[in-house]
């Protein structure tokens, strides 16, 4: 197995004297920081915390489903556990994690800016996120909620006596954090690019994050108003979703999915950006069809706004609109496939090295392809009526969001870890973790496709005994998957003190972020860089002597 990592001589290597990590010390210097890199680290801590809560809930779900008549949790407790899992994982892990952690850290570095356009708003959005998260955790402590993550009306407004208002409030608040993050990124990408950094020299990472930000800005306000209406409906009974007063529960579904389907692409588009970077670096090649990949990100962003009703095929929308939404949903497969083909074509005749980020990337491509294709099954009207509300759907979106997004996130974290901390993670352990994650994931969720196809409904706390074998397989896989998550958390922490010193560009990558010291200075660049080459110009990079960014003055 070849490797592309080139560390400086470890006997003499030193971390830079001044960096964003050691410029100031103390809790206050973190909590009041306006540095995008420190805010990214704070987001990393926050989202990891919520991931652990959501993961614990997932463990409870899998333990419960080990036996047909669920011996661990009572039925209503089970409802609360899977609702908590969904709410925390979607709104407090998957949606914020990639944009707010890697995006915050890397966007200014990649485009040659000293910070995001609005540093103070950036910090404010972290506080909003944490406030929303705290409301959500308090909600769990004070009894939880059993609506599922979708708040389906009229169940959530009229038939439940749980903490629906608090749960909706937490997401409402965290939603504004998403809006502000998206707004910040769009303005940063438009207005803060270094001289010479034209749109088509931008890394594809930036294109993906741009599409993500557009979704944040356009879709999140709609869920804000939808959840505000749910809260008002519960508190004072305004009747907009109440059929007795003439309201329409289906209206809620429309408003909710108008956000939540684009939000699904928020959970995958950043991953696609990460994968583009990693594939180019570990194949030592320009990404095949740069423009196609860039515009496919934008296309996914645009299409995402016209597919929401495919969540409602069985809920009584008209046949004609179902037909149109089915067609639109299948169209999303086109830009997604363009990406997959272009990454594969990048690997073709590339000089591939199988370091940890690349292993995660290969895992992503496999899992995302399965997740995406099963999405096309679900988009077909006839299939959907058979498969919707079964474990097939559960398996489908876990393949995309967990198999796809979390693999991509892991690829990104490993890839940029030396840039973030200045130290390497242990490479061999990293490879083991990547393989464990892939195996564990498939073991957990592939059986769920079969279960769903056989008709096991989702969200049930018990199931007929003939489904037990596959459920045991799934639960067993979940334990393997858990190791795949815990292992990186452990060695990442270990590497903070004992990891090898990475130097500024251990991967010999071409992006602007690799041309500065690791960890970077607070102001990123000593002088504004002038960009003369594209982010994937590995042939340019081969000319080592010129491998330095020219600066102004």
């Amino acid at each position, binding site marked *: 197995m070849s490797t592309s990592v080139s560390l400086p001589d470890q006997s003499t290597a030193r971390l830079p004297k001044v960096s964003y990590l050691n410029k100031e010390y103390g809790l206050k210097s973190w909590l009041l920081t306006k540095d995008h890199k420190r805010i990214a680290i704070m987001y990393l801590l926050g989202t990891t915390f919520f991931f652990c809560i959501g993961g614990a809930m997932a463990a409870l779900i899998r333990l419960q489903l080990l036996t047909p008549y669920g011996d661990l949790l009572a039925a209503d407790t089970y409802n609360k556990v899977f609702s908590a899992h969904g709410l925390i994982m979607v709104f407090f892990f998957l949606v914020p994690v990639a944009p707010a952690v890697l995006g915050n850290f890397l966007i200014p570095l990649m485009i040659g*800016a000293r910070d995001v356009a609005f*540093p103070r708003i950036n910090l404010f959005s972290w506080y909003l996120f944490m406030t929303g998260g705290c409301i959500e955790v308090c909600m769990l402590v004070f009894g939880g909620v059993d609506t599922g993550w979708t708040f389906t009306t009229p169940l959530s407004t009229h038939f439940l006596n749980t903490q629906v208002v608090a749960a909706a409030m937490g997401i409402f608040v965290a939603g504004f954090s998403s809006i502000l993050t998206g707004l910040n990124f769009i303005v940063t990408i438009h207005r803060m690019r270094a001289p010479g950094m034209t749109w088509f020299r931008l890394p594809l990472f930036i294109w993906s994050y741009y599409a993500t930000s557009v979704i944040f800005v*356009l879709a999140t*306000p*709609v869920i804000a108003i939808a959840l505000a209406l749910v809260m008002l409906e519960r508190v004072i009974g*305004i009747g907009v979703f109440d059929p007795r007063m003439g*309201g329409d529960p289906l209206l809620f579904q429309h408003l909710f999915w108008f956000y939540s389907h684009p939000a699904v692409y928020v959970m995958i588009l950043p991953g696609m950006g990460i994968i583009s970077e990693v594939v180019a670096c570990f194949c030592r090649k320009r990404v095949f069809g740069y423009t196609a990949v860039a515009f496919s990100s934008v296309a996914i962003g645009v299409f995402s706004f016209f597919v929401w009703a495919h969540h409602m095929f069985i809920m009584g929308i008209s046949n004609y609109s179902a037909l149109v939404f089915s067609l639109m949903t299948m169209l999303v497969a086109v830009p997604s496939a363009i990406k997959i083909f272009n990454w594969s074509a990048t690997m073709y005749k590339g000089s591939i090295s199988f370091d940890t980020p690349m292993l995660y990337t290969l895992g992503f491509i496999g899992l995302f392809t399965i997740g995406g294709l099963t999405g096309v099954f679900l988009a077909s009207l006839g299939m959907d009526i058979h498969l919707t509300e079964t474990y097939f759907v559960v398996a489908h979106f876990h393949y995309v969001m967990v198999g796809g997004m979390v693999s991509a996130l892991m690829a990104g974290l490993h890839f940029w870890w030396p840039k973030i901390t200045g130290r390497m993670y242990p490479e061999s352990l990293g490879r083991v973790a990547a393989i464990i994650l892939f195996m564990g994931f498939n073991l957990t969720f592939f059986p769920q496709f079969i279960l769903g196809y056989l008709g096991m409904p989702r969200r049930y706390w018990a199931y007929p005994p003939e489904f037990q074998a596959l459920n045991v397989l799934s639960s067993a896989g979940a334990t393997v998957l858990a190791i795949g998550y815990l292992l990186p958390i452990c060695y990442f922490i270990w590497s903070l003190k004992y990891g090898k010193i990475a130097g500024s560009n251990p991967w010999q990558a071409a992006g602007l972020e690799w041309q500065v010291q690791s960890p970077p200075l607070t102001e990123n660049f000593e002088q504004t860089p002038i960009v003369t080459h594209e982010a994937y110009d590995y042939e340019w990079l081969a000319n080592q002597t010129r491998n330095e960014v020219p600066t102004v003055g």
Partner: protein
Amino acid sequence: MDSHTIAAQTAETAQLEHEHPSFLHHHFENLAQQREASTFGMWLFLLTEIMFFGGMFCAYLIFRNWYYSAFVAGSHTLHIWAGTLNTTVLIISSFTMAMAVHAAEVRHRVPLLRWMMVTILLGVGFLCIKGYEWHDEWVNHHVPGLNFSIEEFTHVNPAYPGDKPLAPDMAERTQIYYSLYFLMTGMHALHMIIGVSILTILLIKARGGAFTNGHIAPVENFGLYWHFVDIVWIFLFPLLYLISRHQ
């Protein structure tokens, strides 16, 4: 503009680009970049606001189609004079805000303060009239969920003798109209309150000479916000007050 002023302005711009005035944040290259970024950010923010109100307008559109007669009956109970007065107040306040931005551009501190003050007063005036209307609706049992009676709608409204009384189930639907009315005017009023508060802060800063030194971005962007809130009302007024007034 004669060549002298142009030359003076160019020199001034050049000076601003090379100097680092106190209001230039460290992460921007120059003032032009800072100003463009903040204006662009504001426009994007307004876009999110459109989407936020869009959800409510969408609900309004659907329900108005379904329950048109209930919407007509509901609309006919509102005070059209109050709505018209408020529309006028807001349009004038937009004008005064535009004048405030102009005053900041030409660096006249006293007119800036004066126009900002008038804008605040108009904003507060709007909220007072709106508050009076809400109070009236509370007294007449028109607040769904808290204090609502369909009594009035099952009889002919004396002000509109041409209207037919509503059937009891359609009379129930007037609650949807009022829910949307309170929701939309409430959200609008919330934006007004936030606007007046921000403008008050800007006024205090402007007294210290903050926006007459070339740093007009906060005033300019606030102006955009204020006009946006105004435009939302321009849509709300006909949709809520003027349904079928010609009949």
